């Protein structure tokens, strides 16, 4: 998979895997290594990887928010206890 950023299922990828694949795709496009005819397929692959990364990031942010919210309650409890 890491050898060929134009293939492989994206849904199962971790954030790190998807980012690495996206970097490969962008690099290949920027270095002009891809024939004209295949360039759009690679671009679309890149767009799908970017969407997957964004989704993973949003999920992680939600988790952080959840933890923060819980910590907020915890702090409140601590303050109440300290009074």
């Amino acid at each position: 998979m890491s050898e060929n950023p134009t293939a492989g299922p994206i849904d199962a990828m971790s954030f790190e895997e998807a980012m690495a694949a996206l970097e490969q795709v962008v690099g290949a496009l920027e270095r002009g290594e891809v024939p004209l005819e295949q360039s759009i397929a690679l671009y679309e692959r890149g767009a799908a990887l970017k969407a997957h990364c964004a989704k993973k990031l949003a999920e992680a942010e939600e988790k952080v928010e959840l933890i923060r919210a819980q910590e907020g309650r915890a702090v409140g409890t601590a303050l109440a206890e300290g009074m």
Partner: protein
Amino acid sequence: MVLVFTHPDCARHVTPPGHPERVERLAAVERGLRGLPVDRRECPLGEAADVLRCHPAGYLARVKASVPEEGWAQLDGDTFLSPGSSDAAMRAVGGICAAVDAVVGGAARTAFVAGRPPGHHAERDIAMGFCLFGTVAIAAKRALDHHGLKRVAIVDFDVHHGNGTQDLMWDEGRCLLVSSHQMPLYPGTGRPEEKGAHGQIMNLPLRGGGTGHDMRQAYERVVFPALQEWDPELLLISAGFDAHADDPLAGLEWQAEDYAWLTRHLCEFAGGRVVSSLEGGYDLGALAASVAAHVGVLEERGR
């Protein structure tokens, strides 16, 4: 009236089955031209001297020597030669040079050259991206060196960066080159930081999914003011129609009306002296509709 240059030899550049840059594109262009009152001309064979203003003699000889007697010769990942390819490419060169002669000489105000193969990816000594000779750069050099114009401009609105034209015009301080293109996409070049030896090259990358509205804003914001300031005596257009929403090789969302809008604005410069040459455009229906829109405006403005 707009001059339209074509030649049957341009259909003798045959690509392998399934290749997007195919002979049928010319029939789509003809469908687009149907009903327009255009003044037809045959592309003369281009002169080696015109090609040599941009490409080394060794490159011209190598391309000609690579032409196969039958079947195909492959020059890069997607650039092929068939037995008729050299004649076709030299007609495309001859057509645009004749168009420049007619428009600079005052015989016509606007011209469209429907030749193949396209040209804007061909670098000094590299055939690539379906292209053999840098036709529009060759035309710019003819206008400057043969006709003695002092300032010309090229606008390349093909969805891919005109890396070849950029390579050929990098040191040419008398020619403003503007290329708008989807990025990232083939061939990977075309960043705004690529400005040419005299700061005379302007690259305008567009984001994938961008619409005609985005294009209009970008051209109004930076391209039209740059053309206004440059005040060219002749405007050349690398007319690729692959930014159309239906095109299979790119991801922009332009419509045929966007090409009409853009052409109308471009005809405001250079005293309306505009020579346009076919580059990409791979959905046949979108190509026909876009050519109709583009050449329709060239016809209005050519009166």
